[in-house]
């Protein structure tokens, strides 16, 4: 009995010490501030033997749009981002959704009519069809951006242009303009 108590006490001590040993773990480094995509447009890379300096050509219309997008970066959040942004609002939405589902159940139970039950079944079926359709149409979505940039090395060798989508991202700091091109099988900076 005494032995059992001692083993249990030792076990508890071990578990309790684990809590304190976490205090020795170094504070995680703050992750660098992520960039924010503000605008999506297209980019064409054109090799030109006649020019001596790389040149970035932006149409006036696009420049105007970039200006507008940078001016309204806070408003440019996606719907999901907007929803995720506020905890209290999500709680209220959950509360009302709970009430909606509860009262829908009460309505179905007290009505007891086949017609209402058919309507409810129809609604569930519609939601299932919409969900299934959402999954299916993803299969029909266009190829990923990397598909268009895959031919860039070959095209550069041949002296041909390459065209693809481009996200304009604003990153913190004062670095040079950087063009990140999606390429399968390339190593990340710093990787050997």
């Amino acid at each position, binding site marked *: 009995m005494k032995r059992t108590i001692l083993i249990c006490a030792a076990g508890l001590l071990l578990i309790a010490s684990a809590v304190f040993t976490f205090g020795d773990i170094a504070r995680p480094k703050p992750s660098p501030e992520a960039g924010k995509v503000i605008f999506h447009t297209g980019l064409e890379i054109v090799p030109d033997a006649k020019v001596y300096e790389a040149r970035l050509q932006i149409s006036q219309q696009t420049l105007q749009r970039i200006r507008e997008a940078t001016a309204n970066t806070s*408003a440019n959040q996606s719907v999901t981002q907007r*929803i995720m942004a506020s905890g209290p609002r999500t709680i*209220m939405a959950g509360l*009302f*959704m709970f009430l*909606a589902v509860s*009262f829908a159940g*009460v*309505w179905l139970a007290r009505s007891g009519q086949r017609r*209402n039950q058919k309507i409810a079944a129809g609604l569930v079926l519609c939601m299932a069809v919409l969900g299934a359709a959402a999954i299916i149409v993803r299969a029909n979505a266009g190829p990923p951006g990397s598909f268009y940039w895959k031919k860039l090395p070959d095209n550069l060798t041949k002296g041909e242009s390459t065209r693809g989508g481009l996200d304009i991202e604003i990153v913190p700091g004062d670095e040079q303009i950087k063009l990140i091109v999606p390429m399968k099988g390339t190593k990340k900076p710093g990787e050997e």
Partner: protein
Amino acid sequence: MAQVANLRYVDAMERAANISMTAWTDARPNDRARGSVRLFAAVLAASACLSAILASWLPLQVSIATVFLFAGPHNWFEARYFLMRLPARFGRSRNFFAVAFAGIFILTLAYVSLPLLYYANVWSGSNWPTAIATWNTLLLLWLGALVLMRGKQNSRRDWFWALPVTFALCALNWLAPDLFSLAIVYLHPLVALWFLDRHLRRTRPEWLRAYHRCLLVLPFLIMGMLWQLARAPSLSDDNGLFWRITQHAGAELLPSVSTHLLVSMHVFLELLHYGVWIVALPLIGATGAVWSVRTIPLARHRRGWPKLIGAVLVCGLFLVALLWIGFSANYAVTRDVYFAVAIAHVLAEAPFLLRMI
């Protein structure tokens, strides 16, 4: 006298020729009715197409012109229509109307005070979505209460479904309150079409089928506008007024959608709304003779108030004139004030529509 003589003449003719004139006499009104239905459908479809073309072609200009010309008069016609639908004695509907009027008053007051409190620095802009969500929730709960009360007035109806639907809409509203408000901006003009449907059902049932067919044109027009304007460059909102118009149509909330499309769609729906209230409903006699107060039950009733109703309508005309003067003096500010105060007519439509269902 002339009619009696005519009937006698027809009777004599029937006896003389031993033929029945019934088929002939019936044919003429039928032809006339069919002709009027066709004319009604043609005018409706043509108006919708013309509205879509104008709204797509010059969205900002048409928006400015239509609000200037029709915003005030359509409110006056709506007010007159509601007065006509208001019973002289509420009877069993006393509670329904009490809740309806209290809701219209409180919600309008709250809606108008929201920007005033914001400009008075009572709260910061970060709390704006919560304030809008709260107002939308109150609106939905009020509508839910009205639907339940209306449902209880008829024992054959079970409108308990309104409760889960109201709560589900409240949940959606709290997820994206600004988008929910934008949905109200776009859906409100369509309520006028529902009013027209209910009125035709009562007064011109023979026109209803043609009307429903005309309504089928609307999705095609909307799809056509989406197809044509989805890739159109955004409108230049380089001055305060154009910026206000694009913001009202949801430019900030839907930044990836062309403002040309947004403004055109909103103007198109507004044109339909104005057309129904100013042209369609008065033409089919829904508002009664515009100049006659006697078509309003509150004025016609032996214990009614004909002078008060007359004064209200005349004051309404003065307000319309005042709105035109305001638009002429400072269009942008008057537009802002109008769209804040006009929430009252949006709210008033709900109880009167429910009374017609």
